[in-house]
């Protein structure tokens, strides 16, 4: 699959933190630990943490980035960071509507 298509698809995805993942705030951002696959991932910027935590409150990733006031010039770096989080199963696709 073409990388651009994949990342565009990610922007339109309805993502959420996997229920087995815990986030721990740290000075540089946060640590994410997946109790299921035991992976430990560093979220290296506080804005990434903010976006990840807000995912469940918005429809798509693009909506979340807008709601979190992330400059569109930075969206591609967020897509890369969140792609890595999806690959490690820290994030997964939601199937139900967001609450509220």
């Amino acid at each position: 699959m073409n990388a651009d298509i994949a990342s565009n698809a990610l922007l339109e995805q309805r993502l959420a933190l996997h229920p087995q993942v815990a986030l721990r705030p740290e000075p540089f951002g946060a640590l994410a630990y997946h109790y299921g696959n035991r992976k430990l991932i560093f979220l290296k910027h506080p804005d990434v943490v903010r976006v990840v935590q807000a995912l469940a409150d918005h429809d798509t990733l693009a909506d979340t980035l807008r709601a979190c006031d992330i400059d569109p010039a930075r969206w591609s770096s967020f897509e890369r960071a969140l792609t890595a989080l999806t690959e490690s199963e820290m994030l997964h696709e939601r199937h139900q509507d967001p609450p509220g």
Partner: protein
Amino acid sequence: MSATKTHLVEKLKGGLDAPICLTWELTYACNLECVHCLSSSGRRDPRELTTDEAKAVLDELHDLQVFYINIGGGEPMIRRDFFELLEYSIARGIGVKFSTNGAFIDAEKARRLAAMEYLDIQISLDGTDAVTNDAVRGEGSYDMAIRAMNHLRDAGFGEFKISVVVTRHNVDQFDEFKALADSFGAQLRITRLRPSGRGADSWHDLHPTQAQQRQIYDWLLANGDNVLTGDSFFHLNALGEEPLPGLNMCGAGRVVCLIDPIGDVYACPFVIHDEFKAGSVRDEGGFAQVWKHSDLFTELREPQSAGACSSCGSYDACQGGCMAAKFFVGIPLDGPDPECIYGHGEAAMLAASAGDRPRPMMDHSKPVRVNAPARVPVTIGRR
């Protein structure tokens, strides 16, 4: 190393709000008496944390969001409340990996362990044959470990770990260790021998030779993605263009620490000595106070001097090596690692007289019995 990774390492050096890799030695009691035991274990310490105290520590670790802990000893399964603490920890959301010599894993215990979630087991084995292993870990310890691994496999535990400490006698067995691990569906873990605990005496005769360092580096580079190392070989990184997988830094007091059986908190599992004791979980404020505010840990999180290594072009690659390894051979902390690939460590050790070597503290070795058979067929020389 990528720019992002370097950036991250710099941040990690400043310390985390809670440790990532916390080792908790539950007891100094042990059925074995390995010649390289980093905690000089053997006899139980009467001041050992009680069950209630241990649970209070777990409550604290839960509040600090410590995701998992590494439990060791001594032999942790000797504690009567071992399963109680294991279950309590997991129920509090703290995963457990525990190290054991396997003596107490029978068929029934293996089934009990297999039924638990968020649990890893690490069986210690230092040779792929009884002669090599038992020379270091004691007679019968090879059979003991293999028996435990068979029980875990039969109980359907899944992927456990086989944990190897590298000595000059088992470097040639890496491929065999890997094959053994594969045959059990286990993961191999290979870590560095340190001159800590009883290792202070045996290290000089057991540590890999200079020629073997290259062999270790090459093997880990070829196999490293599937083999755990505790990131303990970064002192070898200057041997090639490519660093070994893992974080290239000393984590002591920054992302790593040790809680010993009586609740004392040290910078890492390899420095059980007053100089590296940051406090106690029994002090006011408990573990969190020690981790966040102790003088020692604050100091370790400050930028460290490259000292004698500052003129060496490889300092960025090896970071001056392991603090614990230097300390127990009498090399200053800003000196070269005793196993420096350029041999600077050899010279520094020669410069330090034997009298400069700090003796390990907290020796819980069993008293030597008169007329007792020799513990291990290894010559323990003092140079």
